[in-house]
């Protein structure tokens, strides 16, 4: 058996807000937490039923409709955790968008002002508002932890995804800053940077289609988020970059082929 008694016990007592919980990484994280006995406030802006909740976690998962771009909603979400979960130990902030509804990959010169507001507003401002709302409570109680979701695009920008990349770079820097600020008060902030993950986010590319081959299952990111949450007090992992093993292999192979070609006379 691969028992992890410390890890499991640290997770089962947690009361956690998960934003972006309707789909993708947020849904996988909420389900994994609930499966380990955590109490979860599953937050998303749509009131649609969260399909993954059919998994039988209803006793431990409370759905909550909130828009992370609204400060009022974020404060309300934290109050609901207090009343319905009996408190708040952790925030997993996974809510994010690749581009606005109907948007498509375009170079920066063609982007509208509204697209900036939609992407940076949700990803970066949303992180600010959700973190701030949670910290108001966590700093008071001198305990708590936050895991923010960034992306490898936040370390190296990708063409046609300037706004997404910029917003995720902002999430990394915001997380680093706030982690240092709140550390003395017993609050731990970590940030996870996944590479391509097979989530509905890719559908925002419209006709260009879904996740690239080799994208990680969202459960894998949930594994890493749970790993972060279960770290013993006083220990943190900084800026975890999570890559699919195989896409890496393909890239290496492509580089190798290009190199061979270049060397040929």
């Amino acid at each position, binding site marked *: *058996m*691969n*028992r*992890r008694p*410390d*890890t*499991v016990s640290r*997770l089962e007592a947690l009361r956690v807000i998960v934003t972006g919980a309707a789909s993708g990484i947020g849904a*996988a994280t909420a*389900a*994994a937490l609930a*499966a*380990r*006995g955590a109490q979860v406030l599953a937050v998303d802006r749509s009131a649609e039923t969260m399909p993954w909740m059919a*998994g039988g976690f209803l006793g431990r998962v409370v759905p909550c409709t909130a828009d992370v771009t609204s400060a009022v909603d974020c404060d309300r979400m934290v109050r609901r955790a207090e009343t319905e979960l009996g408190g708040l130990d952790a925030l997993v902030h996974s809510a994010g968008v690749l581009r606005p509804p109907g948007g498509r990959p375009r170079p920066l010169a063609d982007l509208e002002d509204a697209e900036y507001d939609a992407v940076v507003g949700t990803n970066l401002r949303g992180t600010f508002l959700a973190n701030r709302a949670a910290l108001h409570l966590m700093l008071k109680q001198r305990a708590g932890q936050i895991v923010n979701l960034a992306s490898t695009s936040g370390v190296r920008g990708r063409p046609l995804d300037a706004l997404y990349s910029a917003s995720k770079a902002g999430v990394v820097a915001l997380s680093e800053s706030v*982690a*240092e*600020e709140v*550390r*003395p008060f017993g609050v*731990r902030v970590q940030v996870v940077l996944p590479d391509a993950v097979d989530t509905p986010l890719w559908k925002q590319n419209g006709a260009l289609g879904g996740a690239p081959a080799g994208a*990680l*299952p969202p*459960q*894998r990111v*949930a*594994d*890493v988020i749970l*790993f972060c949450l*279960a*770290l*013993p*007090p*006083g*220990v*943190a*992992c*900084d*800026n*975890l*970059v*999570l*890559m*699919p*093993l*195989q896409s*890496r*292999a*393909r*890239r*290496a*192979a492509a*580089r190798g082929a290009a190199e061979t070609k270049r060397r040929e006379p």
Partner: protein
Amino acid sequence: MSDVAGRDPAAVDLAGRCAIVTGGSGGIGLGIAAALDRRGARVVIAARGADAVARAATTLAHGAGFPDCDVRDPARVEALFDFAEERFGPVDIAVACAGVRRAAAGGRLVPPPVSGLGDADWDEEIETALRGVFHLARAAARRMTARGGGQIVNISSARGGLRGEPYGAAYCAAKMAARALFHSLAAETAASGVRAFSILPDAVATPLIAGTGLGRTGTLTPDQLGNVVADLLAMPLDAVIEDVRVSLREGRPAVQRMAARSGGPA
């Protein structure tokens, strides 16, 4: 999705796996060996000396010791793999953790600046912390890619593996180079199902940093780090976390440091 107990069924079960830990007789290495041992892995502790290795091996429930293992000697590293395979079967996990413990003068270590760094000091650091890592990585990669699976871990450092620090030129040069070696290794072996990655811990309470002044603001314990490494090795094998930085979130807070400094933000 998780199974009933909330575990990811894709997680790696460490029980029964054969693991090698160089530098395993003390400090971080022993912390990792102990954590893997607690999860049922068959651990071979390798290090220089015989007594320390034997003592460390007796603390393991399932493991064994491989004495006089100077990682600077490639033949000895190959012999380590042969020994582990003979005892416990093919090596699933290889952890490079051997480091140089520098002699302290008057109970306090004063690391030299580049201008005062002796050839012998430079060579010892680079030979152990870089060439030794290469020997282990090469032996592991050969055997693991042939079998189509395995994990290779490089214990780097957040104080030296990310950028050079004053009075630590040889150490930082070795640590940064070894991390680069692992980037290359990881990309090469991924197609064969072999995962390779580096872990960059903050100061850990070990004999290595005794007297250096590091860790005055608090340290990780070898046990804490060992558990983190074991958790990472148990992560499902379709993903890899590159350059895992493990830091301490206790001790003297940054805000106080900032307040103590005059002037504004950098």
